[in-house]
């Protein structure tokens, strides 16, 4: 009796175990595939030899990270800050300023637009909603040349202010997720506030926003990320103005034929550094982020 039970149990357990093993093997393979480029990048960034076909560096060094901020030439002479071919520090700062500014401006714009679309009923609402949806389907870089000319007219070409304006200007089109979230907040709250004499403006700031922390965080995060990772527009917009480049454009230039031999490992170090703040930000904000996405996805 016990025997049969045992065999039955083992049969079941074995089946489960087999399934688990299969699942774990698949998961492990996927993890390796996903993590390999990152691990490779990190390993390379600590490599002292310029060679980049080996996975494990033969000599380890922290030099590549130092060279991002204090470079030296092929003969080993230090290069002054002013003459650095790749002023990484300046670029990081530029990227940070642009990302923070456009995150603040864009978040405000997006939330206000979403509030209007969610709560107000006006004649062209439907048309505007559709319009926004269709316009949002066109990639932003399509109008790059025109945007550049417009910025030139305002005297803002190749400037960080211009970049912030461009990134924030299109923000209004990203209203869908936060509008969805606002739709889930009961309208009775608005009505109660209205009875107490609150204006629409007060309702937005005092009632809706405090209830929308997840979506605020989510919007801020996504708007912060897009300038952080954008290459195509900055490279067109900033042209030769190296002082105003962002990290994406700067790092890419390390890989041109002239520099790749001496700068490949430095590039890797730069890529690792740029990932750190984003990763930390994501880990801290993860809770809100998930709540924001799922909350916003509820049909309203």
């Amino acid at each position: 009796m016990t025997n049969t039970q045992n065999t039955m149990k083992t049969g079941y357990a074995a089946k489960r175990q087999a399934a688990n093993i299969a699942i774990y093997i698949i998961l492990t393979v996927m993890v390796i595939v996903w993590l390999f480029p990152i691990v490779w990048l990190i390993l390379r960034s600590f490599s002292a030899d310029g060679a980049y076909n080996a996975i494990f560096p033969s000599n380890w060094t922290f030099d590549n990270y130092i060279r991002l901020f204090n470079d030296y030439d092929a003969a080993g002479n230090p290069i002054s800050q002013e003459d650095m071919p790749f002023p990484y520090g300046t670029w990081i700062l530029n990227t940070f300023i642009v990302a923070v500014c456009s995150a603040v401006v864009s978040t405000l714009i997006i939330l206000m637009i979403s509030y209007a679309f969610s709560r107000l009923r006006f004649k062209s609402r439907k048309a505007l909603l559709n319009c926004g949806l269709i316009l949002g389907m066109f990639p932003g870089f399509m109008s790059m040349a025109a945007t550049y000319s417009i910025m030139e007219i305002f005297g803002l070409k190749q400037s960080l202010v211009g970049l912030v304006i461009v990134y924030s200007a299109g923000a209004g089109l990203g209203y869908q997720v936060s509008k969805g979230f606002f739709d889930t907040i009961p309208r009775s709250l608005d009505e109660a506030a209205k009875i107490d004499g609150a204006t629409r403006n007060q309702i937005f700031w005092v009632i809706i926003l405090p209830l929308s922390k997840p979506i605020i965080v989510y919007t801020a995060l996504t708007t912060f990320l897009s300038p952080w990772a954008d290459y195509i527009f900055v490279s067109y917009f900033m042209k030769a103005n190296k002082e105003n480049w962002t990290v994406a454009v700067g790092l890419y230039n390390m890989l041109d034929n002239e520099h790749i031999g001496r700068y490949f490992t430095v590039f890797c170090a730069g890529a690792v550094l740029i990932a750190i703040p984003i990763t930390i930000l994501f880990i801290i904000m993860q809770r809100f982020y998930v709540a924001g996405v799922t909350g916003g996805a509820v049909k309203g």
Partner: protein
Amino acid sequence: MVRKTKRVLALALTAMMATSALAGCAGGSDGGTQNSSQAPTGNNSATTSGGDVVSDVSVVDVDSDSVKQKLISAIASEAAKTNNEIKITLWCSSDDRSFEKKLVEDFKKEYASDQYTLDVDVNSSYGEDKAGGKIIESPGDGADVFNMADDQISTLVTAGAIAKVGDIFKGNVVANNTEDSVSACTVNGTTYAYPKTSDNGYFMYYDKRVFGDDEVGNLDEMIKKASENGKSVYLNVTGPWYMTGFFFTAGCDITYDVTTDTQVATFNTPEGLKAAKAICHISESEGKGFSGTPGTLGDNAYVQQGFEDGTLAAAVIGTWEGPVIKAAIGEENVGAAKLPTVLMDGKQEQLHSFGGYKVVGVNTHSQYPTTSHILAYYLTKESSQLSRYNERGLIPTNNKALEDETVNADPARKAIQEQAPYAHQQGTSVGGTYWAVNPQTVGTEAISNKGNLSDDKLNEILKNIVTQIDSAKKS
């Protein structure tokens, strides 16, 4: 008779233009060099004598005090338009930036005046390989003065983005630089750029510990010797720039006409087959004393790595890798020579190559054309070329600078000079379509098959390349 009168007339006009250039400089805002700020239209220069290189232009002693004063007043009249402030931008490669900055400081001192402030921004965003393209992309945002490789001149001329060499400097540029370098800067009889260095081509660096100076003449023997030493000889036959040399050697007709944008490359001929078979012949030694591809690394990184870890004993590459190779194996062990001979159709033939120059151009959209031309001239005159050689190791184009003792003793200079008769100008040989159709498929196929390709297969590849070039022409 008619011809003679024409010539005399041309001379007279030249003289007139030279004087008017000077007068203009001294006078109002109509600087003589202003001519060059207008979009060039090709064959419109009165000074053209019909040949490629204009030789009958009077040489003005630009560095004499009287001329300098005139140039300064020309700058002043240009500065008057913008509050007596001049701000121009110079593009150079980031490796050259600190040196170019020093030169620019000297330039500012030399042409200083209390009538204006002169500010030059030395920007290293775009190196000599990209500058021309970036200028064409948006000339209005481009630098006033830019460094580039000579093969970009013709497209810049077509785009109307590069100004003719200022009349007052033309005589100097033509007379003082090597004939070949001037003709590389000349399109349809008009000189558009100031030659700066003569090393935008390739030759061979070798490790003296492996090869004696008399052992670098024959590629087959070099491969054998390198293989005995467990090293290899590098010649990138999968790179279009290097591999085209074989087709030049075989006598294929490779020409490019910028005005009609017509590319000719007669690869589908018996000569083309000879070249392809020569590539196959050396590809047989791939991995056994010969290395014909940099893999994913790219030439520069591959050569650097090869000399650093001792796997390369010789490499076909240009002066830009000189410092890296010297650092890797020690300056005393670095030798340089013209390209070796290769076995082609049963005979040893001298391998041909591309040769080229780095030059300085002036943007037609510059707000300060006169000042820009003076700067371009200053950056490329004899003394600047010499100090550029001394500090950066870049071989001059200026005749006198080339005669300098240290320059003369440089193995790279000798190698370039010896290769020169076999070096072809890029601007007149190949245009954009040539690079776009991947002519190097011959080399990549040869390497991946270890040289084991039938004549039929080779003919097919060659025919394919030519068909692609021809169809690119029609569209």
